[in-house]
C-alpha cells in the first residue's frame, strides 16, 4: 500500500475526527490549530475555536503563530481576558463542551504531562516553557487530545515533573485528588492513537496507522502498554486530505514539506 500522506497530515486528521459538531475547541498554535481548522471544515462545521488569551470564535484569515497573535483578535464573537477564558473551561456548563489540544515534552502511562523540565526541577538539564494554561486545561476539560512525537524518552514511566494532571496514578486517583473527570483522553502521535482504560486509567493502544504495527509502537514507548485492543486506523480519506491541503494550510506553513 502506498502511503500518500505525511505523518503530520494523518496526525491532524486523526485529531480532527475527535472533534464533534458543537464542540468548543481550546486550541494552541501549530498542528493543534490546524486540527481545529480541519475539523471545522470537514466534520464539525459548528465547532468553535477559542484561545486561552480570551478570543472566542475568531475569523482566522491567516494562521496564527502564537495564542497571543493579533490574528486571533479579528472578527471574534468577543475579545476578553485570560481570567474569562479559563473561567469558560472551569465553568461546567461551558467547560463540559470543551475539547482541548495540548502538547508536551513527556507523557506517562496515566496521561499526565510534563512541559516544565528534564532533570531536577531546581537545576534542570533542560528547562521548558512551563505550564502556561496546560495544567488548567488538563484540570478542567473532560476531553484533551495530546499531540506527541512517539519516542521512548517522551513516553516515560515517571515524569520528571508533573505539570498537567491526567489520571494521576490511575484507579480513580484523579477524582480522589479533587479534580473533575477529564484530562488527556487521546494521545495522537506519528505512529498511532492511544486512549485510557476507563477503570485503571492506563494508556492503551487504540489505533495504529497504516504502515505501523503495535510492536513498532511498543518499541517507541518507554513503558508497558496494552495493545490487545488495537486495530488499524482508517486512513485519511481523499476528501479529508483535499480539504486539509487546499482549504486549511495551502501554503503548508504548518504541514511542512509534502510526502
Amino acid at each position, binding site marked *: 500500500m502506498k502511503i500518500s500522506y505525511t505523518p503530520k497530515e494523518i496526525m491532524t486528521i486523526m485529531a480532527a475526527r475527535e472533534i464533534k459538531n458543537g464542540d468548543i475547541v481550546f486550541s494552541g*498554535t501549530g498542528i493543534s490549530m490546524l486540527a481545529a481548522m480541519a475539523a471545522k471544515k470537514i466534520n464539525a462545521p459548528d465547532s468553535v475555536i477559542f484561545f*486561552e*488569551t*480570551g*478570543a472566542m470564535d475568531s475569523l482566522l*484569515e*491567516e494562521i496564527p*503563530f*502564537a*495564542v*497571543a*497573535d*493579533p*490574528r*486571533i*483578535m*479579528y472578527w471574534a464573537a468577543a*475579545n*476578553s*481576558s*485570560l*481570567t474569562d477564558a*479559563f473561567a469558560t473551561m*472551569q465553568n*461546567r456548563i461551558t467547560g463540559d463542551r470543551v475539547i482541548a489540544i495540548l502538547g508536551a515534552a513527556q507523557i506517562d502511562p496515566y496521561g499526565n504531562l510534563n512541559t*516544565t*523540565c528534564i532533570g531536577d*526541577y*531546581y*537545576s*534542570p*538539564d*533542560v*528547562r*521548558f*516553557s*512551563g*505550564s*502556561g*494554561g*496546560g*495544567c*488548567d486545561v488538563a*484540570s*478542567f476539560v473532560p476531553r484533551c487530545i495530546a499531540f506527541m512525537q512517539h519516542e521512548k524518552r517522551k513516553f516515560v514511566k515517571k515524569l520528571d*515533573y*508533573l*505539570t*498537567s*494532571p491526567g489520571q*494521576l496514578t490511575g484507579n480513580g*486517583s*484523579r477524582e480522589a*485528588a*479533587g*479534580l*473533575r473527570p477529564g484530562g488527556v483522553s487521546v494521545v495522537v502521535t506519528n505512529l498511532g492513537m492511544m486512549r485510557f482504560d476507563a477503570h485503571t486509567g492506563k494508556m492503551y493502544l487504540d489505533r495504529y496507522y497504516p504502515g505501523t504495527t503495535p510492536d513498532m509502537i511498543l518499541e517507541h514507548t518507554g513503558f508497558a502498554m496494552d495493545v490487545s485492543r488495537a486495530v488499524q486506523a482508517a486512513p485519511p480519506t481523499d476528501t479529508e486530505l483535499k480539504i486539509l491541503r487546499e482549504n486549511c494550510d495551502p501554503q503548508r*506553513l504548518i504541514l511542512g514539506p509534502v510526502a
Partner: protein
Amino acid sequence: MNNQLDKTMPLREAIRRYVKNGAHISIGGFTLNRNPMAAVYEIIRQKITDLHLYAHSNGTGLDELIGAGCIAKLEIAYGGNGKAAPTCIRFARAIQNNEILFEDYSNYMMSLRFMAGAMGVPFLPTLSGMGSDMLTTWGFSESMRLSDPKIVNKKLAVVDNPFGNWGGAKKVVAVPAINPDVTIIHVQQADIMGTCRIKGLTFADVEQAKASRHVIVTCENLVEKAVLRENPDMNQIPFIHVSAVCHVPFGGYPTAVYGHYDYDAQYLKQFAAAARDENAFTAYQDRFIFGVDNHEQFLKQVGKDRLEAVAADPRTGYSVNMKRD
C-alpha cells in the same frame, strides 16, 4: 495611584521614580503581544537589578529582562515567545545555570493571583492543579518566605469547600494574591490623567494594573480626555489606578500592538539567535539597548523598513501577508 490631573512624564523619569532596585514588578502583555518593551529597555538601560518579577506569559519582555540580569526572583506560568523561541532562551539558561530563583504556576493561577490582588482579597479559589507538582514543589523555601514579608508564607494551599460538595467540589486550590509595587503596561490610548483604552485582548493587564501600588502606562496615542469619555464602555482602567503616563509611540515594538503594528518576527528571530551565544548577546544589547539613549533612538537603530513592514492593516489590525518565518 492618584487623581492628579496631569501624570505625563518622560519614560526615563517614570522608571527612575517607581522601579527601584529590588522592587516587585509585573509587566503587561502576553508572549509577543503588547509587552511594554520601551519600558523594559529603559529598565535595562538604567541597570536596575534584583527585581522580583510576577509573570503569567510575558515572553519578549521577560527574556530581555532576564537576559540583562535585572531579575533575581521570578514567579511565572510560561516563558515562551512563539515560533522564534518556544521556550524563552535566556529564561531557560538562567534556570539551568541557577542564576535566578523561580517558582512555577499555571497561567490561570497567576491570572487569578493578580485578580485577587485587584479585588483586595487574600486569595481566590480554583479547581486547577490538584495532583500536579505545582502544588508540592516550591521554588522559594519556607525560610526565605518567612524572612521576607513581601512573599506569602505558602506557595499554594488546598482547602476544604466550606459548603460541602456544593459546586461539585469537595476541595479547592487557594492561590494567594499578588500586589506588585509597580505594574507597567502598554496601551493603545491613554489621556494625561491615566485613563486607558486597550484594543483587542486585554490578557491580564487590567487585573495586574488594579493589583498594583503604582502603575506606569506607556501609550501609542496620548489622546484628549474627550476621546475616551465619549465611550466609557471601551475604557478598562480608570485614572485612579495610574501613577505615570508616558507617551511612547511604538512602545510595544518588537511585540504586536493590535490596530497599530504586528510583532516583528525578524527582530524576535534575531534576538533568539543572539540569546543563544554570550558574545552575540552582548553585541545585541550594546547595539539596541545600551548603544541608544531612549526608545526613539532604538527605533532609529531598528530602522524605518522594519517599522513599515509591521504596520497594521486598518481592517484586520495586523500586518497582512507579512513574512513571519
